């Protein structure tokens, strides 16, 4: 069971998938790619935030993926 959390103005939007359900995985991947195309950065955070790693491709085996909007100099 994996979860994709997309940070946006509404807090975070959760998308969960089960590896056994192909459709759910595909849908999560579609959302991941849609956000990636918008410039969202993706991080695989399996346990603690210290173990976070930047990813470019959707990994269905990830326990948790966090996608965040692009950052700019303020």
């Amino acid at each position: 069971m994996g979860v994709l959390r997309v940070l946006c103005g509404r807090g975070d939007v959760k998308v969960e998938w089960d590896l056994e359900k192909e459709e759910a995985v595909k849908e999560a991947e579609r959302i991941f790619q849609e956000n990636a195309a918008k410039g969202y950065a993706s991080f695989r955070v399996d346990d603690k935030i210290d173990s976070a790693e930047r990813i470019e491709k959707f990994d269905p085996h990830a326990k948790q993926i966090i996608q965040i909007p692009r950052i700019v100099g303020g």
Partner: protein
Amino acid sequence: MLRAFLAWLARGLGVRVYLRPPQGTWQLLWGGPSEVPRDFPDEWAVGVRDMLDTLADPYRCEDEANLRAEQLLREQLGEDYQKLVTQGYIDVPSRVFRNTFYRLRLRRPIEVFKNGRRQPWRLCVVSIERVPAADELLMKLLWLKTNEEYVLATANRVR
């Protein structure tokens, strides 16, 4: 040695020498504690949302969004969440520079400490989308943990 010499000199001159300034001297010179309200949260804030009330955050998101963002931050930070609430900040050690850490506060630029001293500039990065304050902090944290150089290259240095 110096103390004995000064005591001898003072006795000879018949004056009183203060090795330490009398109590209240510094207060007399520099004034007492400021009564001007500060625009950042203090230690008595009880949660991230209470801290936001103190900040009068101009980019406030809906309460439900803030609630979810706070929940996510709490899950990700673990024990550090309590530190954030009680101290008002969390420190992230640099992976690139020695004796350097970054101090993250809600809705504030990133403070940089080198050898224990705060640098006169801060790193300002913002999300291109409006996100709750807790999410913004999490974003900075994720970037600092995974690609510190990117933050350094992207951020504007502000005073």
